[in-house]
């Protein structure tokens, strides 16, 4: 019995020694729970029930969508679904922000997560002193995500950072 247990234990140990521990996998339940705890702890008590001071206007949504395309879309995607090369490779994966797991968070929680980031995940801390309005506008945009049209998502592409390789590809395909 002991021999069987040892052999069974050696299989994952051998796999780890051979390939290392990969971020491609899905987090275990324990890891997912820790990540959720870290997200909870990113929110100071005073912000948990805070309301968004920025009104919803088309101008605010457009401005925030461009900000999101430039700073956030590499991981989250312009549509917020996280199906990008980086988003799919993070550990834990970038969430689908159109789903209840994000949309059910309060405005204050979303603001705090943007501002503080989430430790032990790929979410960095953004912004700083004096630019609260930008982050509150992003919260407005995140609320709008489940209802975005294809045209809105397409319009954001102009504001995605473009690498030199992407630029070369674009120029080549255009015959330059």
């Amino acid at each position, binding site marked *: 019995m002991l*021999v069987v247990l*040892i*052999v069974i234990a*050696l*299989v994952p140990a*051998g*796999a780890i*020694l*051979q*390939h290392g521990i*990969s971020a*491609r996998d899905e987090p275990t339940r324990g890891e997912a729970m820790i990540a959720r705890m870290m997200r909870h702890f990113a929110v100071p008590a005073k912000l948990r029930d805070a309301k968004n001071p920025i009104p919803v206007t088309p101008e605010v949504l457009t401005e925030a969508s461009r900000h999101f395309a430039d700073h956030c879309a590499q991981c989250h995607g312009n549509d917020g679904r996280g199906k990008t*090369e980086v988003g799919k490779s993070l550990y834990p994966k970038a969430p689908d922000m159109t789903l209840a797991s994000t949309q059910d968070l309060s405005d204050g929680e979303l603001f705090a997560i943007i501002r503080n980031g989430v430790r032990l995940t790929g979410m960095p801390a953004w912004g700083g002193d004096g630019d609260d309005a930008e982050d509150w506008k992003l919260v407005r945009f995140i609320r709008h995500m489940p209802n975005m049209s294809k045209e809105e998502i*397409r319009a954001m*592409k102009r504001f995605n950072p473009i690498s030199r*390789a992407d630029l*070369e*590809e674009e120029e*080549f*395909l*255009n*015959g330059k």
Partner: protein
Amino acid sequence: MIRKLIVVSLLLFVATAAFAHAGHHHKYLGTVTAVHGDEVSLHTTDGHDVTFTVTSATSFKRGDADASRNDVTVGTRVSVEMTLDGKTASVVKVGAK
């Protein structure tokens, strides 16, 4: 017994090599030189000749719009993102001719 355990352990350790994962997606930029059925040949911008396969899972794009495999003809400029097997195209972006 200990010898058996060592042998079984070694076999299991070696067996894990079967789970080796592939590397990054590779991308080619080039001009189509030939199309034969599902095989497309390309002269790349860095001077190499490569051939890749398109399948029903390959997606074709022209800008933001969908394109089709019929748009891939000799002389067309394409960008090809390969699957991890390095032989099959996952995305073909079709450009000018």
